Structures are given as C-alpha cells and as structure tokens.
C-alpha cells in the first residue's frame, strides 16, 4: 500500500513498483478519462498534470510520485484555465471520436497556464506530442486561442 495525492485527495493504491501511473489511475482507481493510446510516450492520450505540468502517465512510475499532486481530466473543470478550455472546446465542437481529447485538454491547460496568449506556432510546438487520429488539429488550435480569449475577458 502506498499513498498518492490525486485530484486534491489522498488515495491508497496497491500497485507494485514499476507500474505506470496510467494503469494505476485507470485499472485501480477506475478513473478512465485518462486514456491509453500507445504506452510509449508517443501520443499524449495519457496526459495528466504532475504539480501542474502536463506529463505522460504511461511513462511515469508509481514509485516516483511521493509528494506529487496529480490532476486528471476528471478534476480539470475545477481549474480556471481548465474550465475555459472546456468552454472553448464546447463552443467550437472540437471533438470527433474524443479518445485523444482528455490528453489534448490537459496539454492545452498546461500551455495556457504558463503562456496565457500563445501564438499559432507556440501552440503547434507545445501540442505536437498530442496525436489526434481524427485530425481535429485546426479546431484544437482555434480552441486554445479561444480559451485564451475567454481567460483574458
């Protein structure tokens, strides 16, 4: 048994050393908003925040999370930037299949938190690692820009 800080609460988990955080969240804590896409840090579907930093949970191990605050998509609406990104995603109907979108949103929130008005190029650079097989990219780009506007207002 070990303790993790997740979405503002302390949770107990049994996973052994070497278990990726992704599977702890999904299979043990049964929070399935964080997705499995590749398992090798190549798609971004599994993105969560560790102390506010977007991080690939498929390559983060359960033993390395002492004292780290983990945030998943399920709690992102509680964050002002998170709520703005969700609002922008709704206004622009960004999603298609939706499977990549938890990760897209977590990455977008990370970007806007550190850079409140990113250029199109900065968005592309930051969001590069979040693949969308449905290719919703232009709405993602517009969604980040729209969220920036919402936050500025």
């Amino acid at each position: 048994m070990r303790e993790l800080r997740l979405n503002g609460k302390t949770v107990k988990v049994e996973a052994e050393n070497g278990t990726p955080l992704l599977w702890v969240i999904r299979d043990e804590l049964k929070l399935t908003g964080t997705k499995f896409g590749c398992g090798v840090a190549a798609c971004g579907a599994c993105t969560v925040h560790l102390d506010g930093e977007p991080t690939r949970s498929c390559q983060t191990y359960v033993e390395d999370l002492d004292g780290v605050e983990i945030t998943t998509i399920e709690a992102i609406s509680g964050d002002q930037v998170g709520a703005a990104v969700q609002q922008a995603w709704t206004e622009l109907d960004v999603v298609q299949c939706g499977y990549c979108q938890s990760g897209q949103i977590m990455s977008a929130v990370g970007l806007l938190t550190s850079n409140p008005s990113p250029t199109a190029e900065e968005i592309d650079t930051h969001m590069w690692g979040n693949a969308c097989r449905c290719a919703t990219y232009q709405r993602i780009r517009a969604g980040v820009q729209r969220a920036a506007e919402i936050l500025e207002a």
Partner: protein
Amino acid sequence: MTVRMNRRGFIATAAAAAAVLYVGISPNGALAASGDATALNPFVRIDADGRVTAIIKHFEMGQGPSTGLTTLIAEELGVTMDQIGFEFAPSDPQVYNNLAFGPMQGTGGSTAMANSFMQYRNAGAAARQVLIEAAAAEWDVDAAGLDIVDGRITGGGKSAPIADFVAAAAALPAPAEPRLRGPDEWRLIGKEGTVKRKDTPAKIDGTAQFAMDMQLDDQLVVVIVHAPRMGATVASVDTSAADGMSGFAMAKPLPDNSGVAVFADTTWQAIRARDAITVEWDNSAAEMRSSDQIRDELIAAVSDTSTWAPKGDQAQVAAAVEGAAKVIDRTFYFPLLAHAPMEPLTCTIEPTDNGGVILHDGAQFPTFGHMTLSQVLDLPMEKIAIRTVMAGGSFGRRANATSDYNRECAMAFALTDRSRPVKLVWTREDDIKGGYYRPAFAHRVRVGLNDRGGIIGWDHRIAGQSIMKGTSMEQMAVHDGVDHSSVEGVADTPYAVPSMSVGLSDVEKATSVLWWRSVGHSHTAYVMESMIDMVAQESGADPLALRLSMLPGETPAQTRMASVLKAVADMADWSNTGDRALGLAVHHSFGSFVAQVAQVSGGKDAPVRIEKVFAAVDCGIAVNPDVIRAQIEGGIGFGMGHAMRNQITLTEGEVDQFNFPDYEPLRISDIGAIEVQVMASAEAPSGVGEPGVPPAGPALANAIARAGGPRVTELPMMTQVDFA
C-alpha cells in the same frame, strides 16, 4: 439470417403501464407507436416526464450520428436539441439493419445519414402526430390546427407540454405515412449554429465511456501473444518466467493456435506477463514474403494484360494509345496501411445469470459480432446481448466480416470457466502489427494525347489484393470477377474520358486486408487526379480548365463535380495564384463530391509544409453543416498524413513497424488552416465520413509538383519529399 426489407421505412408506436411512448418499426415492418418497448423496435422513446431519447442504430466513432440522427427526431417531433438525448440501440439486425447493406446492422461506407434520413424523420413525425391526436381528442379541437413547438403542443388557443399526452398517445396507432415537415419548416436541419454535438460534454470531462473503459467487478484482462507472421501457429509456450508474477492468472493457446491468451487481473499485469512469456512458432504455413516482393509482383501485374476487364477493351485502347502523338506512361504504388484508430481494439464479454453473455463493444458491425459470439460460444442468438459504447475511432478497422477481435475475445472467454467477465485489450503494437491493412495496390496508366494535347485514349491497369473476395461480402461486391472496391473511382469516374479501358488483376493474399477509410478511393483518386494534372502540364492546360472540360454536364454527377470544383477555385482564388503553390483535386465517392486545393510552401529547395487547404463538399442535404465540415477537415488530415509518411512493410512476412514512433501520425504542426464550404443542395444526404479523404493525397501531390518538387507516384511521399 433473413430480414424483411422495408423500403419505405414504415414505422410503428407502443404504450405501457409506465406511460412511455415508443415509436419505431413493428415486427411486420410497419411504423408503429406503443407503450411497450417489446412490441416494436424503437427509434425514439418519450418518457412520462416528456424526456425524449433518440435511439441510435449506428455506432459513434466521431463521425456524428449521435448528433445527426438526434437532429432528425428533434426536427420532426418539434423539440429543441436540449430537450432530446440519445442512446445506442441494442443489436437487433431484424430492425436496425442498415438499409444499404441488406440483412445486417452496421455502420460503414459513409451510409449512416443516407440510410437513416427517412427512417428517423418518419419516426419523429409519427411521434408528433400521435401526440397531437391525443391532445386534439382531449381538447376537442381539430388536430390540423395543432403543432409541437419547443416541446409543447400548441394551437387552438391551448398549449401543454408533450409530457401531458405521452400515455394517451401511446395507445394510438401510428400513422402509416406521417406528414414530414418540409424544408421551409426546418429549424435545425441545415441550419448553421443551431446544433452542437451531443457527444461533446462527455468527451471533454472524461466521462464518455469507450470500450477500453470497461471496469466490471472481478473482470479478467486478456492480452494476446499474436503470431508474428500471417498463418504461423503456436508450436510451444513457456510461461515459467510469468509464473508467480502478481495478478497473472494463466496463459493458454487460443483454440485455433493463432496466438496465446494471457490472463491477469489488470491490464498492466497482463502486459507484463505477456512480455515474460516465450512462444515458439510453427512457420510452415506462414507468409514469408517481404513487402518488396509483393511490390514487385504488383508492378509486374500492371505491366501485363489484366485478368479482369471492368471497363472497355484493353487491347483496343492500348493500340490507340500506342499510336498517339504523345504518351504519358506512369506507374503508381500504394503501400499497406494500418487504420490505427486512437483507441486500440478492445471489447469485454460479461457472463449473465441465465448462462448468456453481454458483449460490450464499440460495435461497428454488431450483427457479425453477434453471430460470431453465438458460434464461438455455442450460444443461441437470444442469449447474447450487445451493448454498444463509444468507439475511439475506427476508419474501417472495427468493421470486419470475420469480427476478428470479437472472435478473439470469445475464444479467450471460452478458455476460462466463464464465471468472470473477460476484457480483451490490444496494445498499440498489436494494432500496428495486427494485419487487416489497406491492401497494397499498383496502377499503371498510359494516356495517349493527340498533337493538340487532347486525350485520345486512357489505358488504366490496377493490381492488388481483393478485400471482398473470400469473405461474406463477396456476393454483394464482386461481379464478373471484379471486386468493385478495387476499381471504384476509376471504372466509374464521372469524367468524360474518350476511349478508356480499366483492367484489374488480383494478387495472392499476403496479409489480411480490410477497407480503410474511403476503401478503393484511397488509391484510385490519387491516380486519376495526379494523371489529370500531368496531362494538363503536358498539354499546357490549366488544371481547373482541363477538369471542367472533362465534366461537360452530361450527367448529374458531372454537373455536381464541376460545381464543387468551381466553388473551391473561388475559395482559393485559383485564377490569382501569384507565387502560391496550389494543387487541385476532386473526387466523387459515397454519393458525395469533394474538391480540394492544397497550398504548400517549400518544395524546390526548402522543406514542404501544408500551409492551407480549401475544400468544397456537396453531400446532398447537409443535416449538420458543422459536423460535415469537421468530417471533411478530419478526412483531409487523414488523407494527407498517410500520403506523407505512412506505410506498413514486411520483412520475411513480419511487420517492421511497431507503434506510433515508426507509424507516425499526422501532427498538429504538419497542417495549417482548413476552410470548408458545404454546398447548398436539395439532393438526398450522402456520405461525409470518407469522401474528404480521396482528394487530399492528390491535392497535396499536385501542389508539391507545382511547387517545383518531385511528381510523387510511389507512396509514402516521405521517401522523396522533405517535409518541414
């Protein structure tokens, strides 16, 4: 399985104790209303409190039926989009059959809107009519003076919510032919800004349930050690290194020896155990060829006389071409491609108390899955239920006549004592290496030109592995030896091409193959549209003018194709190209017409980047214009991304690629803005999920050539083009 086809989309109603109104199709195929859900198969349900639920027979992989079919019910019934929800229909091929496929329920071929347009409107209209009749009787007014507006029955000086009449309406018979609202009454269909996607809220807060998200009590997770070569079988298994690993339950060969099923309590435990297990394979019946050999065979086949002749007389046309003043002779090659939907394949089989099972699946062809489970588990159809959940993309992969992953899950479940739910999980590696690829194809085209540059003959030869032959779809799709899906987009081109022949040769099976978003059009459009640009270049014609000259408006298809071309040319300001490098392509597929212009930078001395893409689409009546735009945007990305850099290759029968690092998806930085214009139309709605794909590759290829880059005839482009 036989199913009564019901061309007119009759509908039935139903009422029950709890005062619920269902409208759908009754067992005799008629439109029916009832309060009893078992009396009919519903398309819409209205609860006692007036809550309206559209029951969606097509699965949602992002293409939008949960929004589109809901829109049709809301429009006809007279409720707002906020007053209606949706749920997926259970598997019942008798009722939810896709009218385009015949006796089966399924989603594919961009048919969801086309085949449901009348059915769902009729159901919504019938529900409106019985509610109005119930109110008219109660109020003692003429039903003709009543309508439903924003969920209230209104008229004759009265107004009440539909909830008040649910019970009374459920006791009334459904009209045989309900009055449909005319286009002038539409508030939602085709109206910009009135409809938001119904699946957005759950997809942005982590609550949408995909098949991968099944977490049943006490479930076992199974992953499979798949044979590395098609046709290889398990020779021996050594599980000693996995024994004692936490959560590991057991590992057993699948009954057909195609792999080894590894069971554990959680996904990660199963993956770890799989890594520890060693399997020896018997390769005696395995495919050992490399993709280079397959390529050579295809190229040889198109250099020879074709086996089948879907169009024209090859010898005659070849003779005409050989005598032409000028011949453009090009050979094209298209590699194997994986679908790689974002959600890897997965499904869960849950045992029920009565000895049956529930399959939880992002089910694209529920009827096939249903039959497969019945056969593998030796259960009667009625003991199997299929629960459709969200699918994280598909691009064709989840639809297949052998229901491969449903079968695999059923075989694994049968290896257990059937007391615990079994969830099958494919990793990305299983997906990339797992077969069912878009087949490799070669084309050779020889176009003969006269001395004024006019086309006098078009000899087109195609070779590839047939998708349909040897499957249950063969009878439907193969005629006179020709698998239409191998030649669609060429043999049936709307272009007026003087003296055209199309030949087809099949090649022997090298891997399992499957339709891949836009099927044959994924390669045929590339060839047609590249050739036409080459003809334009050779004859000094403008690529737009040449295309328009080949679309003289002699058929409706020519007229519609010409009008999307003109529209996209306007959008891209084609006549004022300036120093922009623009590439044009147009294609007709799945009943729709899409023209695109790609604008690239670089090409000659600098790396190529897609700066902008313009598209015009005519898909008949545009039910949800923004969903259509999204599908075209996505289709463009999908088409261009694969043309740029994707291929599956084999070395001695083994797939070389393993995951996204070497099957690199299109990334956000690869593509600039996309502008899509949806054409106004009064034609019946046609496909949008696939038609955006075919013109994308050739528009990019034509832009690269016009930018001074190479003319790419062998995909992926990446081997010859440097992308930014």
